[in-house]
């Protein structure tokens, strides 16, 4: 897939130019300077020769079936015609550099749709438009207008922002960081991140895939592809627009609605994509993955020539759930033997400020021998006796002898520069601060766990879909989009949620009669199509234990509602069995514009509303996802029971989440769902969905 983009034998440049500084000129120049060994066909009706290459006047003059890749740099309005001509010459892989499409307004958007349609009819794949092009270092192909060609390496990088791409390429050249591929995605009219990831997965030169995204095309497909690819090689993505201000900026920049950041978080989590919060983090992780093997466990040993940085590293490790475990007795004995008396032989191993290269070497060798050590962070601060380049060489050489990852933190800038360069030669990633090294190790370990995670369990429940369909149709026919109260509970019941028996009373006598039949205690709620927030208008009473209380409550509810909402249409008051659970949870679903049904879970009341202690996953969710959603929230111990309280029925929550997920997948017309509250009973006794609300699409 995409071979002709990455490894073409011949490239045509539609819109090549003689004029220096024009994009059409720069691309030809970059192809030549990059060392591309295939044939180059510049096309320009007015020129005969560009940079020593013979120029073709028209696409029609190209030899039939001889050109693998076309790069189009002509004004937007001519692009569609060029596609047709390219197709006639058998060219099916095209990079459209030209701008003037979706990003430029409504005419451009229309033009982009037309170009895409033409491409699809002709079987052409398009990268762009409005992109920088691509670079493949292994075939020395610089099909971009970035003059910087990074050195060969095993990091692949795709970016939705071309400008960010140029900045990063420039930085990479300066840092001597090697890339395998660089792909500027542009407007993603055709090829999107899913296609790119799939192609890079098959690319033997790429060890880690990096991405910068502002939004995602075809969210569910992205999750599916990323899920497959991430089992083979790590995918690290920075997704911008994670705050309201960022979303606003992204909206006017890309013209697409990105949805909630929690949806990205969930989607990435479920598909094994590592999320980097910043570009700096993106490359911190990239270097770790590109340079070092994955750890086989979370046990990290730290070797340092300074106490302070050792402590900082220890703090960072604990925060990242990295185990600064105790070295074995054998190891500490050996360390005692080789290190000065004042050295610290426990983890972090402090080899003192006067440590020269040989002391680092002995310590490294001893620590690596400890079978429980899964990885090592070597910290170096430049002190009077420190042999910086030599130590770097030693670390490099030792790293050649082990399968365990070694990361370095040579702290400082000027004095350690040569050491860092030597580390790079041995592919030891260096971090200016130990915290970043720890975060990178943690990410490697998390990724390792993802790779080893067994296939997920997907369960399917029996459900009365016909009944749900019927309710949805009824509500739609009545002109409403919201489903509450009785009908909402009926939908839940069709998916085998336990719901309370509930009947509507028109007057207080009937209320008492119904309460007698249902059994005390009962809950009473106003029933009115006009009142959505019942408790706000005094429309809810709970824990009513006798006919007298029910009678008084009925009159009380009616008087409150008439006072607050005199215009509301009242159908009566519902009488419901009261369930005495001591803990309540909330389940929800909101359809995300990019990923689809986003399932939410949280502990009821203030935990959701004030503390925002909630977890999210994209449906369909697996049993493991449901389980993780429950244990992920901070208030999870409260569900398990504190101070002698018994645990609630956790399995019942798992079931409820899975049923809600199934409902969301079965009925795409349900746009939002709230099951609030789900009253929990003790282990093995289930849960009752007391109230729910749905929003459906109009058609």
């Amino acid at each position, binding site marked *: 897939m995409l071979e002709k983009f990455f490894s073409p034998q011949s490239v045509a440049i539609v819109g090549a130019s003689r004029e220096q500084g024009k994009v059409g000129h720069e691309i030809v120049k970059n192809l030549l300077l990059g060392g591309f060994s295939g044939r180059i066909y510049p096309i320009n009706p007015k020129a005969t020769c560009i940079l020593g290459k013979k120029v073709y006047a028209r696409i029609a003059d190209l030899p039939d079936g001889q050109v693998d890749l076309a790069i189009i740099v002509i004004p937007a309005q001519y692009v569609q015609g060029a596609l047709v001509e390219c197709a006639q010459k058998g060219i099916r892989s095209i990079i459209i550099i030209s701008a003037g499409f979706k990003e430029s*307004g409504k*005419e*451009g*958007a229309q033009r982009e749709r037309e170009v895409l349609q033409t491409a699809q009819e002709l079987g052409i794949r398009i990268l762009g438009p409005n992109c920088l092009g691509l670079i493949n270092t292994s075939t020395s192909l610089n099909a971009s207008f970035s003059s910087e060609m990074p050195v060969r390496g095993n990091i692949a990088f795709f970016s939705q922002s071309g400008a960010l791409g140029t900045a990063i390429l420039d930085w990479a050249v300066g840092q001597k960081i090697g890339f395998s591929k660089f792909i500027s995605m542009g407007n993603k009219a055709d090829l999107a991140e899913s296609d790119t990831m799939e192609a890079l997965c098959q690319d033997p030169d790429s060890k880690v895939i990096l991405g910068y995204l502002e939004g995602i095309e075809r969210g569910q497909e992205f999750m599916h592809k990323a899920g497959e690819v991430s089992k083979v090689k790590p995918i690290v993505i920075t997704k911008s627009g994670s705050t*309201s201000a960022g979303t606003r900026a992204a909206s006017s920049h890309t013209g697409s609605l990105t949805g909630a950041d929690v949806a990205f978080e969930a989607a990435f989590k479920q598909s094994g994509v590592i999320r980097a919060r910043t570009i700096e983090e993106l490359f911190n992780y990239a270097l770790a993955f590109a340079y070092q093997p994955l750890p086989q466990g979370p046990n990290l040993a730290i070797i340092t020539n300074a106490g302070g940085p050792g402590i900082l590293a220890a703090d960072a490790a604990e925060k990242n759930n990295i185990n600064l475990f105790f070295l074995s007795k054998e190891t500490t004995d050996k360390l005692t033997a080789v290190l000065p008396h004042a050295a610290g032989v426990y983890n972090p191993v402090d080899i003192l400020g006067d440590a020269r290269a040989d002391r680092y070497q002995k310590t490294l060798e001893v620590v690596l021998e400890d079978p429980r050590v899964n990885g090592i962070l070597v910290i170096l601060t430049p002190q009077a006796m420190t042999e910086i380049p030599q130590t770097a060489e030693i670390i490099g050489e030792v790293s050649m002898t082990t399968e365990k990852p070694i990361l370095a933190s040579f702290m400082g800038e000027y004095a350690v520069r040569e050491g860092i360069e030597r580390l790079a030669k041995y592919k030891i990633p260096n971090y200016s601060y130990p915290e970043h090294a720890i975060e990178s190790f943690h990410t490697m370990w998390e990724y390792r766990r993802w790779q080893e995670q067994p296939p997920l369990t997907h369960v399917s429940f029996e459900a009365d879909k016909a009944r749900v369909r019927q309710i949805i149709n009824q509500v739609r026919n009545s002109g409403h989009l919201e489903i509450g109260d009785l009908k909402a509970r009926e939908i839940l019941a069709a998916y085998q949620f336990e719901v309370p028996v509930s009947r509507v009373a028109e007057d207080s006598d009937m209320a008492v009669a119904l309460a007698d039949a249902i059994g005390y205690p009962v809950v009473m709620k106003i029933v009115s*199509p006009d009142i959505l927030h019942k408790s706000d208008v005094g429309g809810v009473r709970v824990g009513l234990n006798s006919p007298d209380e029910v009678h008084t409550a009925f009159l009380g509810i009616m008087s409150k509602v008439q006072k607050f909402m005199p215009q509301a249409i009242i159908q009566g008051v519902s009488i419901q069995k009261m369930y005495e659970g001591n803990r309540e949870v909330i389940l929800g679903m909101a359809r995300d*514009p990019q990923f689809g049904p986003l399932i939410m879970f949280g502990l009821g009341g203030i935990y959701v509303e004030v503390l925002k202690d909630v977890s999210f996953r994209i449906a369909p969710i697996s049993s493991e996802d449901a389980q993780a959603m429950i244990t992920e929230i901070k208030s999870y111990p409260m569900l398990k029971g504190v101070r002698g309280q018994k645990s609630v029925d956790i399995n019942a929550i798992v079931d409820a989440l899975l049923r809600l997920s199934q409902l969301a997948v079965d009925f795409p017309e349900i746009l939002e769902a709230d099951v609030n509250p789900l009253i929990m009973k003790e282990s093995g006794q289930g849960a009752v969905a007391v109230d729910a609300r749905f929003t459906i699409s109009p058609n």
Partner: protein
Amino acid sequence: MISLYIGSTGGYSGKSLVSLGFGTRFARDGFRFSYMKPIGKPTAQVGESLTDEDAIFIARALSLSEPLETICPIVVTQDMVVQAYRNKAEGLEQKLLEAHRKLSEDRDIVLIGGGSDLYEGAFLGLSGLYIVKELLDTKVVLIDRFTNEVCVDCILGVKESLGDRLLGVILNRVAPERIEYVQRRIMPFLSSKGIDTFGIIPYDQLLNAVTVKELSAALNAEVLCCNERLDELVENYTVGAMSVDKALKYFRQKKNKAVITGGDRPEIQLAALETSTKCIVLSGNMYPSEIILAQAEEHHVPILVAKDDTLATVEQVERIFGRIRVRDKRKVSRAIELIDQHIDFPALYRKTGLA
């Protein structure tokens, strides 16, 4: 010949709807009928003279040929108001009687469109009650925008004043959830007081809609795109001032809506486009970015730029939705269809002696 007065318990309760529906049905059932609006408001100008917009509209919709000054003999202009306060408004009764006489010739039914309530026109000496009981000797069908007991009070009040002249009531704009209750509780009660219910007309989204064009005109807004969609009907509106995920949640709860938001909220504008939206109103005279316009075009949703700030814009839109008139062709045919479906015409004919 009988004169049938369409009275109501309040403004905007659906008199035009009933007049249109009745007229259409009378014609189909082979009755010769005419329509008159005894007292009109100077809401339209035809040639030199001011006349009542509703009356013209109904006359045209029912293809009636009588001159407008016969259909609406009295138009309450400012001059007439002043004259009335000086007790100098004279000859009005005569004018009315004369028009009624002309409209009665060779007719089975004269359909008379009343005022907002039965007291309207009293300052001219021509209250609905007076016209019905003394002047034109008519029967009455009362239309009520039914909500609760207050409405029942009004209906019973009218019954007290009119006695047997009140043939029955039509309950309009009843929420679908409420119909069963009205049938079970309200109708038998009214019946026990000697009041027939000729029909319950359910609340109708279409009839309560305004076109994008009407909205745009009322806001004096500039239309930026999708001019071909200005005839689309807007059923309600919402304001987008929250975070984008909340906006999606709220926007999903309303269909065929107008979304009012700031020109500087591209994410809210996109969320609106994602849901059932008929137009986006940008307040504060702020224009959207090109890229948003392109998206709006793709979704076929007009963008209107209003000069006022959000609060003022919302107030205006609110006003428009509170006073909706049947004008649009689609609304007329829906009105006729609703009346035809939900009114018990055989019962009405029996009561009027036409059957």
